[in-house]
């Protein structure tokens, strides 16, 4: 079965510093990986995804993620953090396990709170 783990409940960085939010996955077959951001009392906003191709994926708001097959990781990164980046970040993997068919379902990690301090 597919699964995704976000090992850090919270990440604290200073504004202007680089940030990394970690995600590891477990899949049978090709991984389809996603990052979303959630601001307080809002729905999830799509940031970026890895389907195939280049291991470095660029997304919205200056975020990027690096797919590493050997380490089964898909860490979210940004070269210079902004206070406005403070939010809850979710990594997700598409559920394409046996019997799932093409339902498009996503399995989410528990989320990581990013706190950027001025």
């Amino acid at each position, binding site marked *: 079965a597919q699964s995704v783990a976000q090992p850090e409940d919270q990440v604290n960085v200073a504004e202007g510093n680089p940030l990394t939010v970690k995600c590891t996955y477990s899949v049978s077959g*090709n991984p*389809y990986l*996603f990052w*979303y951001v959630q601001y307080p*009392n*809002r*729905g*999830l*906003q*799509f940031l970026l*995804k890895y*389907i*195939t191709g280049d291991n470095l994926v660029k997304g919205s708001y200056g975020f990027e993620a690096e797919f590493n097959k050997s380490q089964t990781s898909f860490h979210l990164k940004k070269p210079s953090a902004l206070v406005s980046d403070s939010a*809850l970040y*979710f990594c997700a993997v*598409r559920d*394409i396990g046996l019997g799932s068919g*093409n*339902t*498009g*379902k*996503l*399995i*989410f*990690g*528990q*989320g990581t709170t990013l706190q950027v301090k001025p």
Partner: protein
Amino acid sequence: SQTIHQWPATLVQPVGSPLSLECTVEGTSNPNLYWYRQAAGRGLQLLFYSVGIGQISSEVPQNLSASRPQDRQFILSSKKLLLSDSGFYLCAWIPGPVTSGNTIYFGEGSWLTVV
């Protein structure tokens, strides 16, 4: 353009009362639709998904049900709410046709507090 609408945004209901949350999408046809619940501001749990009119799959046994009476309408219901039904409910969709690389898009959510 493709958009998703979800309402009501906030709801306070007494235990034992019924529930109806509605979600509609615009600008697409035959989308896959999903209801997720987020408890305690953290993890997301998939409750139901639908690949077509009248086709509902339940992910977890619970006090809730879902229906899809029209192609772009997805309704989450309960006959009698429990305290444990409180949470943030998110409707989501994939514009058809569905492929493995498609992105799921989320509505703005509905806050349900059962008192």
